[in-house]
């Protein structure tokens, strides 16, 4: 079933992609223009994904709900990191990232917090101070 849904999703994307390709104008002196290559990609994609819908192969074992919850939590932390990195600065955001992912991965909470508290400033010192890769220290916290 999952493979069928994937097939439908790819088919829809490929169909929209191919239709959109037709709108790109051909310019003078460029025989194929920007249109033809996407069509060459899109049409076999539609055929192959349609065949996956009709004849799917392979069994997909999705994780149990509890583990899926763990994955969702980890994703939320990763997305949260992309949003807090600039406002909070590198050490603080990274501390939260390491501590939270550590807890989600089953580490003892206090150990994960200690790990984050040690590693976040250490990584900042390594990359910013030693290796010269500029990373914000406090972000926009006190601006």
């Amino acid at each position, binding site marked *: 079933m*999952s*493979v069928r849904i994937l097939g439908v999703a790819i088919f829809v*994307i*490929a169909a929209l*992609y191919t239709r*959109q*390709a037709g709108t*790109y104008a051909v*310019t003078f*002196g*460029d*025989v*194929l*223009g*920007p249109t033809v*290559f*996407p069509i060459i*990609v*899109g049409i*076999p*994609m539609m055929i*192959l994904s349609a*065949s*996956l819908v009709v004849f799917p*192969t*392979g069994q997909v074992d*999705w*994780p149990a709900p509890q*583990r*899926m919850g*763990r*994955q969702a939590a*980890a*994703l939320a932390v*990763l*997305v949260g*990191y*992309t949003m807090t*990195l600039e406002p909070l600065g590198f050490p603080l955001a*990274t501390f939260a*990232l*390491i501590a939270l*992912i*550590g*807890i989600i*991965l*089953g*580490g003892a909470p206090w*150990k*994960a917090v200690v*790990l*984050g508290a040690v*590693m*976040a400033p250490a*990584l900042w010192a390594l*990359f910013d101070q030693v*290796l*010269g*890769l500029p*990373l914000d220290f406090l972000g926009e916290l006190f601006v």
Partner: protein
Amino acid sequence: MEILSLLGQGFVVAATPLNIGLLLMGCFIGTLLGALPGLGPVNGVAVLIPLTFAFGFDPTSSMILLCAVYFGCMYGGRISSILLNIPGDEPAIMTTLDGYPMAVQGQAANALAISGVASFVGATIAVLGLSLFAPVLARAAIHFGPADYFALYILAFATIGGIAGVDPRKTLLSALIGLLLATVGLDPISGVPRYTFDSFHLYDGIEPIVALVGLFAISEILMLLEMHLKDRPKAIPVGSWLPQWGAIWKTRAAMLRGSGVGFVAGVLPGAGASLGSFMAYVAEKQWSNKKGTFGKGDPRGVAAPEAGNNAASGGALIPMLSLGVPGSGTTAVLLAMLISLNVQPGPLLFERQPDLVWGLVASLYMANIALLILNLPMIGIFTRLMMTPTWALMPVVAAVTFVGVYGISNSVFDLEMMVAFGVIGYVLRKMDVSLVPLVLGLLLGGDMERNLRRAMSISDGDWSILIASPISIGLYILTAGFLVLSVWLAVRDHRQTQAERLTEG
């Protein structure tokens, strides 16, 4: 003779203090990444690429660092295979079959030493092969025109991952998704923005490094979260690290056979180190399993696959450097780095940048010696570091991944895109869709389109130019052959599983 003088120049390039430092660092990191279950060569190299960018190393130094990591992973994977019965990375799976039983029987030191020496033999033979054959292949490929390159790319997509036995339609779809992603951005010839949704972030196209770090590293974290976290395996205690040298000497023939099989598997497109070690083990079993000792701790069953996976990983560099078409996942990632550094691998690379090619080859000889030392006398370090628990390791890896990608462009948009690619990568992996063709499509798509359009401009719109040269015709015939073979294999496997299901039911 010419090769020797070029190699001599290569050693001059490789022997600068910076390059030697990077080489040793790469060997150490690589062995460690290989030994840690869950982190393999693709992830390791993908995580390190952004960092080499951020530090602004030149292409030669970057390649030396990453190839040392790549080779180091191949050495290190066996350590956890033997001591934990968990392969440190995918190619080391075969080593668990005889390596773990040997360790259980108290022969851990021997198993580690045999596999270490086998890795050295395999990798050294592969680097010798690389020095001899890559220039020959490059010289032959110099006659390729645009239409021939188009045909070569088609061949690469049809073959990569195709022999692995999964549904070939999924592999082709994966490549097509990559090509689709490659068309996003300003069209380089006409200047028309395509599929950018009017977002200026997408005008430059999708940065392959961002996509592949997401696809491999972030999806790995998601994969990890669905496994059991609590049951930590116990490593087999090793009394003495001193091996019996006679036991190593007895496996010399198995090492050589494994190297030969692995090397050939590595050079073929779409196979890589995993297939190399698998084929080496199967061949060795056919050859010398006279008393039924394989799978119960036969030293030859350790030597052959280890020699095989190291030989294959070296062999996979040949098509990557001389044709610009990688033969495995990790070499695809290395290709991504070279392209991002404005180095176009292919036949011209050998003429225009001999320093890069031969500096790299020379450094690989040196890397093998460094790795032999790290993996025999100093192996105790890695067995201790290997026991770092996952909950402590993965968060730090995630943080380093973010730093690296952020370091390239200082753009939060890239970080978001990386996480999105992580989810896509996870879903595709769950569906048995290999990610390597996708990365390859994203990398080569731009070039493939450019060559097609150039060929069509030369012929003024006549499609027959695509099959006008004997080279392209030959490549298309080869492509058709591979496709027929992979469909046949898939149908056969499908029938087998159905037959098994019938007998079970």
